């Protein structure tokens, strides 16, 4: 396991993707074949089900260390990771166990049906035979995320660097159906178990933010304007009765969106279309926050399917019945897309991105300003004659987003983050004035520099009201400008309003807490947008 342990140490310390890739390449060059397969399985969500409940792990650690529960929890809230907390609390190892990654995984597979007593014996033996970092890894092998910033894409890029095979093909290979007991590492990366011709995506065409006056774009007749939907870009590939969905990050996300896959089976033709995956209910687009509940899940259960249904707005068509049509003008491609969509009756959640009608550029201002009301981010301006470019190219496509809304709010709670952020208070809750008190309006995690976070963490340590536990109530003193994309009335929130994608615009060191916004001002934003 030392090799795997060294790999994890090398990856976790760096935040440079290239260094992570190099460490992975190095591992793939030297590790035993089965270990390589397990590594891929572990980082692509293909791990076997957890053989031991976390509650038991915690209980056994307390038993071994004879620590009271409150002290265990206090340690946990400082470390921010259960597997790591346990690894740190246990006494020094008494002997040395040396198993490979695949040997450990096989042991863990066999453990699943056993009794708790047998499991405990196994875990105690492992704990007392492993050093701290190996123990942490052992705990993670049982279950839990490594949180070391290795995405499927990173893994695939490492494999591409190692083998020279196309990264998207490798993505399909590792996501595809394979069984660790019957496939070899070579077979897996060569993709003997898949047909890449059926899934091969195209690079996405990306837009720059509009940086000139609309009038400078020329004749409005040369342009097609659409809403800029705020979901995730997706490319749906349908070839030979197989359907694949690629995200913009070049990950295969097909399994996350069964309702899209099912809808696509209605078509007879083969195609590759580009569009936006959105949370959509009763014909209306939901907030991005809702969509997030559906992302990066291993399994989508029925309840979630009903709670956050997914829809799709099609923007463009790149391939039609086997022909790459990316070089045709956008207007022509759009016509092809319309013909395709109008050829059959489609379920309500599969739509053509509608075209914004306008005569003069000036007319767009009001339409853009109204975007928020339909949960759109703004407008997209596309030159009618433009091909579907590879990557980001200036001039043909522009995004023209609405300006974010902002309020000034005071921090009232702080909580430690996870992974790299677990040592600092990085997750904050903000409030505005209501009558004589305060009311929570938003949680935000992003927007500050590491330096600011360090400064705030130190302040939280000194100004926290609680002494124990993960959440700290702080004196309402630090004021922040919170930016967000939209706002709506909400019954689920105590304040009665829900902000869309709130983040910290800046730390208002110049403002005392007495000058923060009131709930009334915040509510008035709903009426004005």
């Amino acid at each position, binding site marked *: 396991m030392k090799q795997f342990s060294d790999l994890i140490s090398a990856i976790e310390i760096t*935040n440079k993707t290239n260094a992570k890739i190099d460490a992975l390449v190095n591992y793939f060059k030297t590790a035993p074949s089965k270990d390589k397969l397990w590594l891929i399985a572990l980082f692509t969500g293909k791990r076997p089900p957890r053989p031991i409940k976390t509650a038991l792990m915690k209980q056994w650690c307390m038993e071994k260390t004879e620590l009271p529960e409150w002290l265990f929890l*206090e340690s946990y809230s400082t470390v921010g990771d259960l597997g790591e907390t346990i690894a740190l609390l246990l006494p020094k190892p008494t002997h040395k166990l040396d198993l490979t990654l695949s040997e450990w995984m096989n042991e863990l597979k066999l453990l699943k049906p056993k009794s708790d007593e047998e499991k405990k014996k196994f875990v105690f033996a492992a704990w007392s035979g492993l050093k701290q970092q190996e123990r942490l890894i052992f705990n993670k092998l049982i279950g839990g995320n490594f949180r070391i910033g290795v995405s499927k894409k990173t893994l695939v890029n490492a494999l591409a660097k190692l083998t020279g095979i196309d990264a998207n093909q490798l993505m399909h290979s590792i996501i595809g159906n394979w069984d660790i007991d019957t496939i070899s590492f070579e077979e897996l990366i060569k993709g003997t178990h898949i047909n890449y011709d059926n899934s091969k995506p195209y690079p996405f065409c990306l837009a720059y933010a509009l940086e000139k006056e609309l009038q400078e774009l020329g004749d409005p007749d040369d342009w097609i304007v659409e809403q800029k939907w705020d979901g995730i870009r997706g490319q749906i590939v349908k070839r030979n009765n197989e359907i694949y969905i690629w995200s913009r990050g070049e990950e295969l996300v097909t399994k996350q969106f069964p309702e899209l896959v099912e809808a696509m089976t209605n078509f007879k033709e083969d195609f590759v279309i580009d569009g936006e995956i959105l949370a959509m209910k009763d014909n209306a687009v939901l907030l991005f926050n809702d969509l997030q509940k559906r992302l990066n899940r291993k399994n989508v259960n029925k309840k979630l399917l009903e709670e956050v249904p997914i829809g799709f707005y099609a923007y463009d068509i790149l391939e039609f019945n086997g022909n790459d049509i990316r070089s045709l003008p956008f207007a022509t491609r759009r016509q092809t897309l319309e013909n395709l969509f109008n050829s059959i009756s489609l379920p309500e959640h599969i739509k053509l991105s509608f075209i914004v009608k306008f005569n003069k550029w000036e007319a767009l201002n009001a339409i853009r300003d109204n975007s928020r009301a339909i949960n759109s981010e703004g407008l997209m301006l596309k030159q009618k004659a433009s091909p579907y470019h590879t990557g980001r190219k200036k001039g043909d496509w522009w995004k023209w987003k609405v300006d974010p809304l902002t309020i000034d709010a005071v921090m009232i709670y702080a909580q430690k983050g996870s992974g790299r952020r677990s040592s600092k208070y990085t997750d904050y809750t903000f409030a505005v004035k209501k009558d004589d008190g305060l009311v929570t309006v938003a949680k935000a995690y992003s927007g500050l520099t590491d330096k600011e976070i360090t400064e705030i963490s130190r302040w939280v340590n000194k100004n926290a009201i609680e002494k*124990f536990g993960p959440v700290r109530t702080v004196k309402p003193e630090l004021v922040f400008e919170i930016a967000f994309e939209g706002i709506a009335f909400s019954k689920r929130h105590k304040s009665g309003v829900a902000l869309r994608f709130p983040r910290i615009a800046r730390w208002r060191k110049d403002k005392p807490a007495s000058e923060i916004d009131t709930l009334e001002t915040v509510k008035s934003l709903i009426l004005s947008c």
Partner: protein
Amino acid sequence: MKAEKELIKFTKRGIYCPQGKFYLDPWYPVEYAIISHGHADHARWGMKRYLCQDDSKAILQHRIGADIKIDSLPYNKSKTINGVKVSFHPAGHVIGSAQIRLEYKGYIVVFTGDYKTQPDFISQPFESVKCHTFITESTFGLPIYNWKTEKELQEELQNWVKTNQANNRTSVFLGYSLGKAQRLMSLLDGCDDIYVHRAIHNLNNAISNSGIKLPKTTLLTADFDKKELQNKIVIMPPGLLGSRLLKRVPNAATAICSGWMQIRGNRRWQSVDAGFAVSDHADWNGLISAVRASEAEQVYVTHGSQAVFSKYLNEIGIKADELITEYGDDKMIEAENESENLETS
């Protein structure tokens, strides 16, 4: 209890001894200050008179000013001040660090300052002192903090340097100039040439001049020769992380050395190549063993995890209370590093 009240009182300026009319590591200017060790949060500027352990004297003069009025005592020798018997006992934290023992009418108080129970290669090892009242730090007062032995650390650090050399990289260690730097020097001694930043170099000179032998090092001058430095070892204060000086070190592999590096999140927070849990403070078991060995009937827990550690002590049957002090203030230590920064620019 009366004797305790005559011996110590917790005031806004710091821990005060009413009978002796002096303060222990005060954070505001006072007439007479007895100092546990040379770190900036314990030995502050502006006291009319200082008393410290012999080995700290040169350090205090170097850091606070050559003209301060300062006396010193060797370890385990006492001096009576207004009837209070005062003595210094090794704290194992940094060179010259001491626990301060006060005795009056048979009542004994020990103030630890900062301490480390595990022996290292450079400072005089911690000696436990029996007392009635024990005032302990708690910087690493959680059971997740358990340090490796000095031998294990030595192997770990030297292996890291060797791996770096195999990859044609220069090993840069970041650690406070007083304490961590000398400790690292002792851990890396004999591994390869060690270059130190000017702030460390000057302090080393002050320490050597007072008669303490330190491992051999070379001053890292501002115009250092890149070829000469390649693959060697550099030690500089943590404030220089991200500095131009560090960027000029050829193929630098950077490591932070601090007890906080025990936790992955802390190691990963700053973009460095390694984090080593090398601490000059007692770990969890060290704190507990020191408290037990003191046999004190009353424990006061200062800077660090005072809430957690005092709660735990009470649970295991040792009467303990939290004591809020101004020690262990990161800002103070950072300010110290910034001033070190200025020295080179």
